[in-house]
């Protein structure tokens, strides 16, 4: 097995294979890593309901197996849950993987002991919005939903009586429903930065729906997959070239959609920038929730943004946000969590991206894609010989 190899794999266990998505490879691999002692802990998503899940850290392989099934959750700030150096495996969407790598750069997570099992992602949906969308657009009872899928540009909900209800995502998103805004303009669908990238894109023929496409990206990726094969938990077969092409095509199509959304949401501001930002931030109540959930902020509870600003300030703009604008210019990955948690409904991710994207493009630096340090820390210094 070598870096860059592609396989299609599935779980050997009948139960995991049927309950898990796409053959249950990821669940089986994570459980095997725990059972064989490759890792001490695994992060799994525990379902709270049909539309909602929370990340849970567990050392019990049974709990990992119980969590089988496709479920998207928010990126977690791994460093706040685990001690530095804990051997851990986590299933991760591209934004989860990128935020974990950004934390590793800031000494919050030991990347050598963290196995990132990447999952393809075409976008996530807000639980509360999903319920509302089901009631108003689909005219369905949220409690009656048995499953959800995105296929050929349509969002399909399956009800408990076996019927499928499909509506085009474009139409939903025009009405303000559908995927989270940050997911709409996110162009990273395949987690190439993770140790191992898994997903159902590119699984064709007899295996369609029953296998997971796996791409090995690092030595750790080889270790976790070989460990699962040695344990007899998964079986793999080399992926055929046709599958690879299809996977790349799906990725390309998603990127095009993202580029269009990017133009829509991040279109240049008309009129005064200052008025736009003052107006956007005027509702801020300085609760600090956006900073608390930010996966790339490693400052801790007391930081420049919190210590030098106060809700009692009578400034025309919030110093808290001004400091954070500069701070996140090189590291914002646009995961969308700040918008999700904002009690004043300020579209923060969108605003932060406006500052971050031009700077990241100028430096040709994309945060969280590998372990190279951000340009802030001295590209120029190295060139000048300091």
């Amino acid at each position, binding site marked *: 097995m070598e870096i860059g190899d592609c396989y299609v794999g599935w779980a050997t266990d009948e139960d995991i294979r049927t309950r898990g998505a796409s053959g249950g490879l990821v669940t089986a691999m994570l459980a095997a890593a725990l059972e064989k002692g490759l890792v001490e802990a695994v992060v799994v998503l525990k379902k709270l309901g049909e539309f909602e899940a929370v990340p849970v850290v567990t050392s019990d392989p049974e709990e990992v197996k119980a969590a089988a099934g496709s479920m998207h959750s928010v990126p977690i700030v791994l460093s706040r849950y685990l001690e530095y150096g804990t051997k851990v495996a986590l299933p991760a969407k591209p934004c989860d993987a990128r935020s974990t790598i950004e934390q590793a750069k800031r000494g919050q997570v030991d990347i050598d002991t963290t196995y990132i099992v990447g999952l393809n992602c075409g976008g996530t949906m807000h639980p509360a919005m999903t319920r509302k969308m089901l009631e108003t657009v689909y005219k369905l009872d949220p409690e009656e939903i048995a499953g959800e899928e995105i296929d050929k540009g349509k969002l399909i909900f399956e009800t408990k009586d076996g019927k499928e209800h499909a509506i085009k995502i474009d139409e939903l998103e025009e009405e303000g429903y559908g995927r989270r805004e940050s997911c709409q303009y996110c162009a990273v669908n395949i987690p190439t930065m993770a140790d191992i990238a898994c997903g159902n894109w590119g699984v064709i023929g007899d295996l369609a729906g029953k296998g997971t496409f796996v791409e090995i990206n690092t030595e750790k990726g080889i270790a976790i997959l070989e460990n699962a094969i040695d344990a007899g938990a998964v079986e793999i077969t080399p992926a055929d070239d046709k599958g690879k092409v299809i996977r790349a095509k799906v990725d390309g199509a998603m990127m095009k959609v993202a580029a269009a959304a990017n133009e829509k949401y991040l279109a240049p501001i008309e009129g005064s920038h200052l008025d736009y930002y003052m107006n956007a931030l005027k509702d801020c109540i300085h609760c600090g929730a956006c900073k608390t959930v930010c996966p790339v902020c490693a400052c801790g509870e007391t930081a420049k943004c919190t210590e030098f600003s106060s809700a009692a300030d009578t400034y025309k703009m919030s110093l808290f946000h001004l400091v954070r604008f500069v701070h996140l210019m*090189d590291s914002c990955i646009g995961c969308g969590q700040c918008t999700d948690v904002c009690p004043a409904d300020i579209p923060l991710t969108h605003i932060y991206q406006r500052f971050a994207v031009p700077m990241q493009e100028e430096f040709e630096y994309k945060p969280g894609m590998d372990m190279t340090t951000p340009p802030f820390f*001295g590209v120029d210094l190295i060139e000048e010989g300091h």
Partner: protein
Amino acid sequence: MAEATGTTGTEEWQPKIVMFCCNWCSYGGADSAGMGRFQMPPTVRVIRVMCSGRMDPVFILNAFLEGADGVIFSGCHIGDCHYVSGNYKATIKYKFLKAMVNELGLEDERLKLDWISASEGERYAQVVTEFTEQIKKVGPSPLKPEGVI
């Protein structure tokens, strides 16, 4: 208030400029400018920092929010830093800050980075004069709080 800031209804508006000077070069430059009796407008409030590498975005953003019409940051010439590489670090931070301030919608003219050595008293006066003229053209800062002149 008008008396305190030296402005009356008929006089021209005088901008308020905050200038951060490094202890070893630019602050010395300000001293030389005084000793050499070089004429310059009294618009600048100097704040001494130990090194231009100490420049923190929070200083500059706070200066603007408190009512500064312009901010100059100055240190030793490249290669002359008392702490070897402080001014290189200032350059990188300045690049980020400048991009941020521009996106925010403040005029490009309101923020400036310049190198002034301890012997360059005349240059110090020149930088201050030119910057004051520049700020006079763009007018009072839109971030100035209500009631601050």
